[in-house]
């Protein structure tokens, strides 16, 4: 969301209109701004080393990379890594799982912060509102290890829920290690962790709606439901579309740490997603080329998804992430 507004302005600020500015010589500017350049240097070096060079390093997707031989010694193999990737059923399984999880999260998770924000917004007592906000933002800051531990404590085989069922002579059910329920479990955990945090942006969108619109609607006889439908929702629409686009751009990224932690409990058949596939193929099994190919594919497809979703948003008359 920050991308479009922060690009440097095209027009320099209007200064010295009366006296046309003489161009400062390059060396003078270099001398004058050298402290600033020194300040930027550490960040630039780190981004260069850990973002840009690895981006170029993605060329090993087209190599039979052998760590011992390095970039220069390894052999170029063209698209061989990609074709072996596409003939690997494990890859298609990972892709299918990723798609299913993304679909579930968009359907079940995405609306939750919107509903919560609308609900919170109707709370008139500032103290109560702030209390609820503090509580529901908290899980966002906990690590996945803690979240999974908490879920195990409540829903696991010996957890609170199952003990309760057993002591009341009901059949316990295994949620944490059930492959069929795994994707729902992931979604539930994601909702528990981040739905509250997600309300921030929607609350801000609601707060930006002109109160006069509500007043006018009420005077025209609109009830609470009609005010929601005709004022609140249209007011939130640009942000909802924006968040949906950003979510689509992340469609292939589905809770890597979260899944890695629980993959063993249900097995790779249900839990393998693109990121875990990359990790286990590359770092664990040493198929560097294939794993990088999977990672590169993911990056490119994600970028294309954002661009496509944005285009669609423009078609529908929304603003999207960037302007046309």
């Amino acid at each position, binding site marked *: 969301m920050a991308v479009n507004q*922060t690009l*440097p302005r095209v027009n320099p600020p209007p200064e010295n209109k009366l006296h046309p500015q003489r161009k400062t010589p390059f060396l003078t500017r270099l001398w004058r701004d050298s402290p*600033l350049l020194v300040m930027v240097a550490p960040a630039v070096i780190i981004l260069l080393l*850990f973002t840009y060079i690895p981006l170029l390093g993605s060329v090993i997707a087209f190599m039979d990379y052998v760590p011992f031989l390095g970039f220069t010694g390894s052999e170029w193999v063209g698209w061989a890594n990609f074709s072996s990737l596409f003939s690997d059923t494990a890859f298609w399984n990972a892709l299918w799982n990723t798609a299913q999880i993304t679909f579930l999260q968009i359907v079940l998770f995405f609306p939750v912060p919107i509903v919560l924000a609308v*609900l*919170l917004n109707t709370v008139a007592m500032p103290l109560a509102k702030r209390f609820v906000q*503090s509580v529901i933002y*908290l899980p966002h800051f906990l690590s996945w290890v803690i979240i999974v531990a908490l879920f195990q404590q409540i829903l696991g085989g010996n957890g609170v829920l199952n003990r309760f069922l057993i002591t009341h002579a009901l059949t316990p059910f295994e949620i944490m290690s059930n492959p069929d329920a795994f994707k729902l479990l992931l979604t539930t955990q994601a909702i528990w962790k981040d739905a509250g945090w997600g309300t921030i942006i929607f609350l801000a969108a609601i707060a930006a709606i002109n109160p006069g619109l509500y007043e006018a609607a009420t005077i025209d006889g609109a009830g609470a439901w009609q005010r929601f439908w005709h004022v609140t929702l249209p007011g939130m629409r640009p942000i909802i579309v924006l968040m949906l686009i950003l979510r689509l751009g992340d469609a292939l990224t589905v809770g*890597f740490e979260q899944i890695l932690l629980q993959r063993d409990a249900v097995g790779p058949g249900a839990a393998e997603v693109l990121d875990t596939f990359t990790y286990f193929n590359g770092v664990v099994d040493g198929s560097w080329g294939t794993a990088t190919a999977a990672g590169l594919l993911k990056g490119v497809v994600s970028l294309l998804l954002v661009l496509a979703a944005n285009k669609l948003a423009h078609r529908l008359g929304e603003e999207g992430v960037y302007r046309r």
Partner: protein
Amino acid sequence: MNSRPVWLGKPKPIAIALKALALALICAVVIFPFLVVISTSVATKQQIDANGGYVIWPTEISFEAYKQIFNGTQVSRSIVISVGVTAVGTAFSLACTVLAAYGLSRRQSLFQRGLLSFVLFTLLFAPGMIPVYLMVKQLGMLNTYWSLIIPTAVSAFNIVIVRGFIQAIPHELFDAARMDGAGEWRILRSVVLPNSRAVVAVVGLFIAVGYWNNYFGPLLYLNDTEMWPLQLVMRTFVLENNVTTNAQAIPGYVAPPAQSVQMALVAIATLPILCVYPFLTKHMSKGMLTGAIKG
């Protein structure tokens, strides 16, 4: 206190009750697991066994599990490691972020536009896991704590947020400092830092939470289990149910129940977050939103 506008009229009591119930339920769903964790961590073995593995409300309180954690085993070491990595990492990352944010804040400065685009581009495209891993390996940072600190130290998003705040500082302050002969470093120290304390604090806390919670980094880069930070040890203890405490050879010593140790560990991993949380909530939504929107 009531901020409801007059023209809305009075809401129906039933609506208020339903809303309150819904919100109370939501809060309970968030708070309940924490209650179970804390209660189980301080409960006695008898009560845990009687209840079958967890306790909602302890009848008797014992801090054996916490003593066990802090008596010099792998867990205590991992806590020290986590604290160290978080402290050094946050200082380093925050320094890079603030320096870059100020360095990029002047619109007319040399190369500013190019460098800013260089930083912003990283928001669009992230490199894959494998090339970054190979880079860390190439630099000889595998199995060092630097591998946890440096690769994630610079985030374009944080730079954008801090830069937005610096640009909102009144021009006159910079002009006055320059008139008085201050160089850029002096301006950074005497004008920029005192005026952007709030945003630096919030961004610093976010960075710290990130380092504290980092679990995949150590898994990827550290082979030596002796070097493991808290999150990884917690995974072994709690999720893999592999509680290894130092064998107590003292006769008559009763080790605290494994469940208590596990939950005490979860409680300790959560504690720092809870400590910084009030500061975070105080500034975060406002700070994050203005920073992101204003740019």
